[in-house]
């Protein structure tokens, strides 16, 4: 479909006797933010690398922006932050970006470089060599490289792994801005709270297979009943949402002292742990 940014059908990768990824079938609409989740070794990075053309599939196929994966012209329209981000430590951040701008054949390179440096908060240190950067700053540079050239789709493989809480918050805000601009975001992350906050949909892979896919609400399940905090602690009550006011009124009539009420809904983390069998 023309509105799909990514279409994968039966995508698979086998290294010798090990299946790194089996039968990945998914669609990501343009402008959508997909959270790609899974435990270590689930095949997440392999999937991302196949979608950006770094790893050749051993089965199935995929299209990115309507072209087969690896298409050279299409690569000018995507941005990629690898999990193993590393940039020449003898170059300054601005030089790294200038190099990538030349690879992208950007005609207005200087303003584009300034813009992405500002976007990731690196403008002040842009003239310093990468070798003098902290790991978090290098990750910010990686994000700047991925955003250069206003890509239509951005693959972010663990974009906050080296960042402090402030940096993580910055990246969340950055992803929100990308979504607002209509950029498709493929977010590969371990941080479930992060995914829950910014992603439209989630795909969970485990041992090379997709084990669940859908919106965050669909995965975590609609709220079923409420949890009520009384003097002696939390209590769960099974009732339909429309019956919650009556339930609370009844408890008050019976003399209960109510401190708090919240939907009895599992978190993405609960669901994730159940799916990957590690609960």
């Amino acid at each position, binding site marked *: 479909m023309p509105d799909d940014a990514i279409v994968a059908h039966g995508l698979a990768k086998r*290294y010798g006797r090990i299946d790194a990824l089996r039968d990945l079938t998914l669609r990501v609409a343009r402008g959508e933010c997909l959270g790609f989740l899974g435990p270590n070794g689930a095949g997440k990075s392999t999937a991302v*690398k196949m979608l*950006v*053309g*770094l*790893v*050749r599939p051993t089965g199935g196929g995929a299209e990115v922006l309507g072209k087969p994966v690896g298409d*050279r*012209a299409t*690569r*000018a329209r*995507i*941005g*990629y*932050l*690898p999990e*193993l*981000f*590393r*940039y*020449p430590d*003898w*170059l300054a951040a601005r030089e790294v970006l200038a*190099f*990538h701008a*030349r*690879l*992208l*054949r950007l005609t207005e390179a200087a303003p584009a470089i300034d813009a992405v440096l500002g976007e990731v908060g690196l403008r002040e240190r842009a003239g310093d060599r990468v070798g003098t950067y902290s790991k978090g700053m290098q990750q910010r540079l*990686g994000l700047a*490289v*991925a955003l250069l050239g206003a890509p239509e789709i951005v*693959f972010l493989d663990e974009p906050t792994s080296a960042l402090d809480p402030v940096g993580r918050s910055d990246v969340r805000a950055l992803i929100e801005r990308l979504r607002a601009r209509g950029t498709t975001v493929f977010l590969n992350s371990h941080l479930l709270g992060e995914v829950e906050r910014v992603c439209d949909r989630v795909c969970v892979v485990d041992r090379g297979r997709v084990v669940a896919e859908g919106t965050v609400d669909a995965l975590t399940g609609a709220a079923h009943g409420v949890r009520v905090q009384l003097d002696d602690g939390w209590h769960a009550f099974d009732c339909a949402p429309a019956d919650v006011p009556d339930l609370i009124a009844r408890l008050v009539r019976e003399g209960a002292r109510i401190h708090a009420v919240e939907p009895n809904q599992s978190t993405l983390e609960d669901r994730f742990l159940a799916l990957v069998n590690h609960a």
Partner: protein
Amino acid sequence: MNVLLFAGLTLRELVRRRLVAAVALLTVAIVGFTAWGLHRLATAVVDGAPIAEPGVRAVAAGIVIMLAFLFSFVIALGAALVAAPAMAESIANGEILAVLARPVRRAEIALGRWAGTVVAIALYVAVAGGLELLVVRAITGYVPPHPLHALAYLAGAGAVVTTAAIALAARLPALAAGIVAALMFGLAWIGGIVESIGLALGNARLADAGTIVALIFPSDALWRGALYALQPAIFTAAAANANASGTAVNPFSVTSPPPPMLLAWACGWIVAVLAAGIAAFRTRDL
């Protein structure tokens, strides 16, 4: 276009990492040491009289050949140690991932790294070798028969080692690729000696073995070209006489330049090995 970009990146890295500065300092030190030694030779007094000019030039010719021999090993090691990391380290440390996600052909990266290293080696040969030859001429008055040919042959040998290192580094770690490329240069030199011995003794099997090694790794053919370009006519005649009588084998003298077919083979070898390296790189999962 992208090939030039990666070649430029390779050269910039050599400058920024201070390799160029370190090599320049060492070259000046070596040339200075040679100048001191040659000066001592030119002003030496034997039996109460200075050495005659023809004698000084003959000794200088021998020294130039010995220096060229050592220089060829420095070039080979330099080429292997520059080319292999230029290609393999960016793969190993992940630098290449973000680059390859751009509209770039893997062949452009390999060719750019190759071209950058070959240019660096050629510049080093021209500057260091040229400086050495100028110092020899200034102090002893000796000029080899074909100095520019000799430098070109030495740079060619460096290009052969660079090609092997780049092709190997497309699949192997930097250290392994560099060591194997440098070892192949040494083996090719030994192969050349074996061929000389075979020819001198009339042993066809030995000669053939040496020829096969020269075909597998053609750096020794280029070294012999440099040797022929550096040795004065009297050395060539002496080598021809020794070969004819079967009395001696001298690995530092040759009787003829490498045949054009062998030079064509060396060029074809570079193209073929580079193409094989690119093919290996193109099919590598990263």
